[in-house]
């Protein structure tokens, strides 16, 4: 069902946790869909210095969360805003069709966190 990359990120997720002094936090999804992703950002000089996640959801939800954190770190927030859910799925060598819709929201969560950062630090 899942690619090796998905299983790798699912079994060894990178950047799990919270950032105590995050300056951007975003959350997407809801419990009835079975997926909630929360992203914590530490942005310095417009660059994403640190990013962590917490996710309630299926294998795809956890793997995309993990992948998006890896992809975001070190990027400017503009670059990070370019990151799409599609790009995350591709970086994982694809997701099963039925997962594309519900569980592939990690980039959205990242964008929410950036939005939150901008609001706070507008």
């Amino acid at each position, binding site marked *: 069902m899942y690619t090796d990359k998905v299983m790798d990120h699912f*079994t060894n997720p990178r950047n799990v946790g919270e950032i105590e002094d995050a300056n951007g936090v975003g959350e997407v999804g809801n419990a*009835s869909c*079975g997926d*909630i992703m929360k992203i914590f950002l530490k942005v310095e000089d417009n660059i994403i210095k640190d990013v962590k996640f*917490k996710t309630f959801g299926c*294998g795809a939800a956890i793997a995309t969360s993990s992948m998006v954190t890896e992809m975001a770190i070190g990027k400017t927030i503009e670059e990070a805003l370019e990151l799409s859910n599609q790009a995350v799925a591709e970086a994982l060598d694809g997701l099963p069709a039925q997962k594309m819709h519900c569980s592939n929201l990690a980039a959205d969560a990242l964008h929410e966190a950036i939005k939150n950062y901008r609001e706070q630090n507008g």
Partner: protein
Amino acid sequence: MKHIYLDYNATSPVRPEVLEAMLPFYREQFGNPSSVHWAGRQVGGALEKAREQVAAFINASPAEIVFVSCGSEGDNMAIKGSLGALKEKGNHIITTTVEHPAVLETCQALEKEGFDVTYLPVDKDGQLNLDDMEKAITEKTVLISVMWANNETGNIYPIEEIGAIARKYNIRFHTDAVQAVGKVPVDVQKAKVDLLVISGHKLGAPKGVGAIYVRRGTRMTPLLHGGHQERNRRAGTQNMAGIVGLGLACEMAGAEQESYYHRVRALRDKLEDGVVALVPDIKLNGTPNRDQRLPNTLNVSFAYIEGESLLLNLDMYGIAASSGSACTSGSLEPSHVMGAMCVEVTLAHSSTRFSLGPETVPAEIDKVLEVLPATVQRLRDMSPLYNCGRTSDNCETCQTIKRI
């Protein structure tokens, strides 16, 4: 890695004796039982022997057994065939909110065609209120369809009492016994059922074969029209090997039913006690009265985590279980059974079913109890819902996960 299979309610391996008995029917005895020549005659006896074995297993007569291709076909045939034959009498069905999709979706399709369906609710333990059932009966009621035991929770329904109600009002009674047969005693006379469905692959026979008991005198329109097989009740060349396998599996299950019950129940109870003792923040799904549950089934929700990711984590240890999570249901919604019991939605997504079988051994249960607590904790540590003081969605929201 050793595999630990705890998903017997999904499917089971074919028993070695059953496979052995099936093999001759693929090549040496490949005849079509409808043929008059040697190739047909070679297999006619085996077909009728299997019919006797299935009949004896549920206390029916052989002429009341019709072979079908699976449990789903049996349920479709029972319901559509009854409604077709009883059109003149009425158009109302009573069933429950916790039936298998083979019953529920069939009823929903019939609603679109103008039939009326009452879906009886269950309480938070998944139990029925038989007063509700009696109240639901109208002049137009022609069929009551209640499963013998639920595939997700293992809840056993009071089939004998329901049978008595159906008889009292002279209403036909169908029961989906796919999960019950082999696990608890099933007797069509005692239970006063008119139609009862079993599926081979849940009891050590292969996938692709099942049977329906049709009480003598029960008029039905066919679901599959065509040839004269099965006394005109089900067209299609009989799946001889599968049928022979189903016959033997029934005979074996009948003979072993009591010893199976005690052995598997002891293991399930050990698992249940262990989970309760070792993992905090859990919820048992189904009735807490273990006597009213299948001896092999434990369904439990682990708060704050989602079912599929738990399953995949257990899978890494070779442990196979199943989940009511939307992610594993093939639909976009979590289990309708959890919804019917008004299980809070995140708990529904985390509901996990362990179903044991005749080949389950104590060491496997030990291993699950060793692995499970840390696995749950690991996922909880990753969850935004855990330790954040967030209150769970209330029961208003939970309505949205009910299909009915």
